[in-house]
């Protein structure tokens, strides 16, 4: 199942956990768990808003999103 998920990720593009869960026949929680596993294994990296880019920016208070999605991207 983890390998199938990795194959989906390798195809590239924007993927969403619920859609991936449907494709793999798993629950969204299990897909999230597998994504975290791939993150620990170094396949994915967590994507944190604008990262270092925001530090020192006077506008950062202006663009903090209230309901930010949890994000990963390939290394």
């Amino acid at each position: 199942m983890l390998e199938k998920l990795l194959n989906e990720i390798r195809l590239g593009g924007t993927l969403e956990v619920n859609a991936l869960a449907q494709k793999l026949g798993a629950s969204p929680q299990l897909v999230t768990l597998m994504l975290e596993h791939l993150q620990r294994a170094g396949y994915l990296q967590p994507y944190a808003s604008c990262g270092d880019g925001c530090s020192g920016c006077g506008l950062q208070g202006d663009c903090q999103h209230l309901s930010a999605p949890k994000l990963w991207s390939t290394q």
Partner: protein
Amino acid sequence: MSDCHSDEAPISFSAETPLIALAGQPNMGKSTLFNLLTGLNQHVGNWTGKTVERREGIFTHEGREYRLVDLPGTYSLTANSPEEVVAREFIVRERPQVVLAVVSAANLERSLYLVAELLTLSAPLIVALNMMDVAAQEGIQVQPEALSAALGVPVVPLIASRAVGVRDLLALTRQALEGNLSFCPNRPAVRADHRQILNQIQTLIENYIPQPYPPEWVALKLFEGDSEITRLMEGLLPEAESQTLKDLLRQHDDAFLAVASGRYEWIAEMLRAAVRQPKIGQIGLTERLDRVAAHPLWGLALLAAILGLVFWLTFTLAAPVQAWMEQWLIAPFTAAVSAMLQPAPFWLRSLALDGAIGGVGSVLTFLPVLVIFFAAFALLEDVGYMARAAYVMDNLMHLMGLHGKSFLPLFLGFGCNVPAIMGTRVIDSWPARLLTILIAPLVPCTARMVVVAFIAPIFFGANAVWVSWGLVLLSLLALVLSGVLLNQFLFRGQRSAFIMEMPLYHLPNARTIGLLVWQRSAAFLKKAGTAILAMSLAVWALSFLPNGDLNTSFLAQFGRLLEPVGRWMGFDWRLTVALLTSLPAKENAIATLGVLFGNSPQAGLTQTLAATFSTATALSFLVVTMLFIPCVSTLAVIRQETNSWRWTAFSVSLFSGLSLAAGACTYALATALGAG
């Protein structure tokens, strides 16, 4: 192993006292159960040579004493952390008679990975299915009997916080200790092709595995690439066997994926057997709404509809407040300042009335528009919709060959293009980052929307909503088309993945929205009092000097120089100047119009503008504003992030060409359709 570092006296127990280990992930209620069982008979110290806390205690049940060790909370038994090493070394070396795995019924997916690993060890396992009450509250129905049958080990439902089920757990533990409980664990399978290699490894190492490590477990850990076990076996194997092992592992360096994959398939199987999760409440609602909101086609249609609704609400609700402000605040204030400055020199009156009030005052009357606009977007963010909007937009961009990682920086651009460009730092690939930097200014920022909110109602009345909506779509279309064209030269079809877990929809929080509207409005007011005021005064000075006549002023002379280009788009020199003054900050365009047109004795600024320019000119001005050269702050960040004047100049050229071409086409088309 049980060397404790603590001032407390170690608890005493006899050698025959049965040893029970409590294993589980953090926050599954393991400590609650430990405290419940041991009470004050516990001892806290550190594991030997580690900074990991060790908790041990004794408890009595039905006249018999038991020794209980609370293992550190771990997600797995792979040597990823000191806690995981401590937990597995304890189970392997100290050989507890029973291991109690505390799992959460409300989060079984997460809990079962550790159980999958515990089952591969030789200790008898009992699963304490904790937090049954939380699971029930969340609508998750876990069937302990079905889970027990699927796992092949006993499962006891539990609510540790209320001591519910603890007696049953202890009774089963006792039965297990007395050997009256059968264990037939259903362990995760390793794929057939890998199974063969695993057996090969086991055969190779079995004569060298130290006691009490189980051979199959050691082979599996080697297969997974576990660093501790690999180091251990490398120190024990003879040269030839060690080399053969290394070769085998090198040939199957993806094996850890196959092993983990097998565990996840096993978890899915367990969940299918034991969990019923009717999709009610937030999860059900989110899934139903996302069938439309996150759909590649309907999602885009919904986004367009929501944008239209936001503009409609903004204009409908703000217009009366804006008119009220103009009539009852700005006009009386202007009259009062005018009366007060009657004896003052002409230039000073002009500076105050035309420069300061004409410029900043015009911008400030649009505060109600902004407050409603900010509130609408804060509401969409707070309920969780904006993540969907970004997702469907990004899907569209991917269809056009754009980069997935570009999505969040571009998303930030709706607030301001500066953080959008700074946010591109998370993109590793330079061509992808450069492409995102170059197209980010095409995301319509709030400053541009202020100009649209000012101009559109003057010329388009009730249709201002549709015009504003169309302008946003035009910007996004320009973004996609520019991206596709630039991608042909910079990107060459490279595709990376981007995965997102969208937040659940939830009811908005008035306080959060209020705070966000306040922060954004305060930032706007600060800008009006500083940058916009300074530009208003500068524009006034240039329009006043050298002789107090606007038509022969320095500004007019400069504007007339550029007027031939402005004519392509239907602009006179004043509109051309207003556009150029938007370079330091987009809102300056309104302030400049306020300075240049706001002193008409017969009518207010809006009436004067409506009487001076045609609808075709206004539409062309809006199109050019949306696509024009980014503000100076954005250009400075483009220079900083690309570290290149060449790319900054390219950006200026790109947006100049794009905006002028789009403006000229719009003007020609609108004039041909009779709007001239």
